[in-house]
């Protein structure tokens, strides 16, 4: 069974974009979530990454990340409500708890936990969209000339994860098929066996990488390249760039710029303690609208059929 987060090639701007462009766009959205605490901005960012993922076709990844993000957010809200006693609006007094002492559940602690949980959920959805839409081969290819060893490690890991998942499923099946008279296999024994098997697998995968020439010096851009990256006859045209790159780089820069300007203009005026204060000024609303709009960038424009340049003139009846 494939992980919902596994990369699947699909036609679409986000998949076609170079890894740098995709990272700039999704990274900017994640950065906004970490810069801002305003629930409105966080909700807008969450909506943007969700829309982006759905438009890019990563429905399974978005759904799984939302499920996980929601669970994590609930956990954070509960822990924050139990641990933090600040806030003036006490909803419940739970008395003296071991280790925690006097526990008061306040509305402010719940809202503060919600903001943190929302931020974590946004980061998870953004990562899920990245994982499902950005080709890891292209990432590693881009990384190799810069950091060869890191790229090798990342390649090994990216290949070993699905192999180890398949091995784990097989080991679990084998454990279930042991006769009742055989020694029981606990989780620790299975994990040990999986680790030992993974080391063997890693050696095999590393051998394959050797055979593919991974140990050779990373290729540099050759002298046959044209000036300023223009395509010259007989020269390789880089397939790692796409016509959508500019769109995502610009969106990333614009989002970050707007976030910084918005912060300066008080768009993130949000305080939870001692009482909740949320700014809903024009700056916050404008920034939120911009963020939500950015979520539509991965939309694939359907081409209209080209208009015929030739007019069809009815022949005159004779």
């Amino acid at each position: 069974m494939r992980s919902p987060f596994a990369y699947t090639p699909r036609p679409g701007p986000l998949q076609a974009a170079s890894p740098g462009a995709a990272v700039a766009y999704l990274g900017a959205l994640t950065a906004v979530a970490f810069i801002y605490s305003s629930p409105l901005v966080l909700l807008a960012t969450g909506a943007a990454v969700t829309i982006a993922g759905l438009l890019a076709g990563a429905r399974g990844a978005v759904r799984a990340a939302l499920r996980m993000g929601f669970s994590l957010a609930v956990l954070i809200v509960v822990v924050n409500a139990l641990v933090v006693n600040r806030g003036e609006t006490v909803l419940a007094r739970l008395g003296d708890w071991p280790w925690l002492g006097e526990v008061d559940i306040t509305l402010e602690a719940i809202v503060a936990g919600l903001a943190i949980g929302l931020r974590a959920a946004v980061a998870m959805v953004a990562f899920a969209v990245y994982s499902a839409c950005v080709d890891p081969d292209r990432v590693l290819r881009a990384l190799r000339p810069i950091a060869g060893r890191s790229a090798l490690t990342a390649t090994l890991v990216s290949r070993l994860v699905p192999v180890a998942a398949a091995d784990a499923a097989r080991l679990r099946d084998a454990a279930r098929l042991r006769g009742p008279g055989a020694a029981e296999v606990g989780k620790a024994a299975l994990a040990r066996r999986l680790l030992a098997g993974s080391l063997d697998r890693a050696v095999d995968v590393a051998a394959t990488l050797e055979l593919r020439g991974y140990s050779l010096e990373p290729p540099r851009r050759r002298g046959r390249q044209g000036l300023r990256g223009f395509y010259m006859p007989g020269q390789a045209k880089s397939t790692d760039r796409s016509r959508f790159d500019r769109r995502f780089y610009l969106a990333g820069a614009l989002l970050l710029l707007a976030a910084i300007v918005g912060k300066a203009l008080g768009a993130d005026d949000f305080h939870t303690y001692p009482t909740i204060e949320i700014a809903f000024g024009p700056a916050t609303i404008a920034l939120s609208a911009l963020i939500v709009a950015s979520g539509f960038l991965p939309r694939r424009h359907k081409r209209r059929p080209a208009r015929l340049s030739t007019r069809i003139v009815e022949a005159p009846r004779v």
Partner: protein
Amino acid sequence: MSELAIRRGAAPALAVEGLTYAYPEAPRPVLEAVSVDVAPGEFVLLAGRSASGKSTLLKAACGLVPHFHGGEIEGRVEVAGMDAIESGPGQLASAVGYVSQDPETQVVSTTVAAEIGLPLEMRGDPDLDRARAVEEVALALAIPHLLARTVDTLSGGELQRVALAAALVTRPSLVLLDEPTSQLDPVAGDELIWLLRRLNEEWGVAVLLAEHRLERCLAAADRVVAMAAGAIAFDGAPAEFLAWSQVGDPALETPAARLFSLAGIEPLPVGVRAARASLESRELRSLGPATAVPHPGKGVESEVRPSGQAAFSARALWVELARDEQPHDVLRGIDLEIRQGERVALMGRNGAGKSTLLKAAAGLIDPVAGKNEVLMGMALLTQNPGDYLVRERVGDELPGEAGAAALRIVGLEHAVDTDPRDLSGGERQRLALAIALAGRMDGERLPGLVALDEPTRGMDRARKDDLVALIERLAAGGAGVVVATHDVEFAAVFAERVVLLGDGVVIADGPAADVLSGGWYFATEVARVLDLPGVITPEQGAAALAAAEERPR
């Protein structure tokens, strides 16, 4: 192949001279004074039993030995004029391609196109050249439709083709293959061998192919090199190899050669076509009705289904699994009954539903419709026996009286204190079976059904004979034994009944002699040669030939 194509006298694609090699900390060398060469454009078959040194020789030819594995090496290995002992596998990658038997660990990229293009990318080839080379090799291997797929959605056969494409994309002068068909069904296996032959003829690439199922590839080879205990035992033409194998190592004899040798016909045939031509020249092709002749492990009376109690029954069984994020019916309304004491081969191409049926019987997968019942217990040994071995002492895997009884059944009672890793491949398989059986036996009485999934992968004939003996012992002990296998010759030896699956439904179910002589891909070599209903083994074929000789013309 023509002498011109083989270009003897040109610099060899591979030249090995006096090669002796020992793995790190190994007590003795695995290769000893090996000298062999492969001419440009030659197709060489590397034969030999398990652990005879075939894989190590291939690894030395691509530079993995000693560069990747370490150890001590002496002698000379040259690939297309490059010193393979001095140069690493990366430097040799342009001159030599390597494909191993496990396709899963031979892919490192996410998509097929990226995987095939990886060696060119590592070499720094421009993108356009790379794109063209990928397209060309994909067309040559008939996989252009796979280029946009991710590797984790491919079947074993497709993965093996992708690995071969990645090995060929640099247009190497030599390609090395280590049992590439061991996980493939007969159809995919035959296709791969003839694809190799076509590439060998069209591209002029030299091929060094290590295989156990020689009948599958002998006819495609220009030359055979046989290894025994780390040394070259034979080096010559395929026809000469067959003559040598009769005395040198009968375990390497092909079924057609054994048929001719039992019938006293010379020369021994290199393949089905040569065998048919030889019989036609003797006017023996129009044989009469098959003579019922038992073959080893199977009496004539066993062709009749045993009247034991039902051990397993499936009624209108439907199983659905996810494939490409979509639910897919893997079993579609299977009706099947297996009785105690029966020996059944479950066959079919990759993805036909064999393993799924066994897993459903063992309760690992729930059916979406229909019913399956295991009436007197079941033990299932899956494709990787190593998955069952998690402890460092045989006795720790199988404690108590139930464990001891299971060890006795598989003949491993002497190995209680041994580390499972020190057991041979066959013994490890028997230990895994004992683990599956332990506690499911009533004293020494076996469960109603014992199932083995692809137990002969990578096995030589001697180990297969041991497995046949074990299956017979289990069946004689009252268990219905069902073996999912691609190995037609193995099925012909052990099975009395063959169930053939095709796309999740039973497409043939009957006595082994009928099913294995009634087609082309799921038929033994002898059946393909003689084309006689019910004749599937060399012994049966020889008897039929003898009867034809005696018949007045």
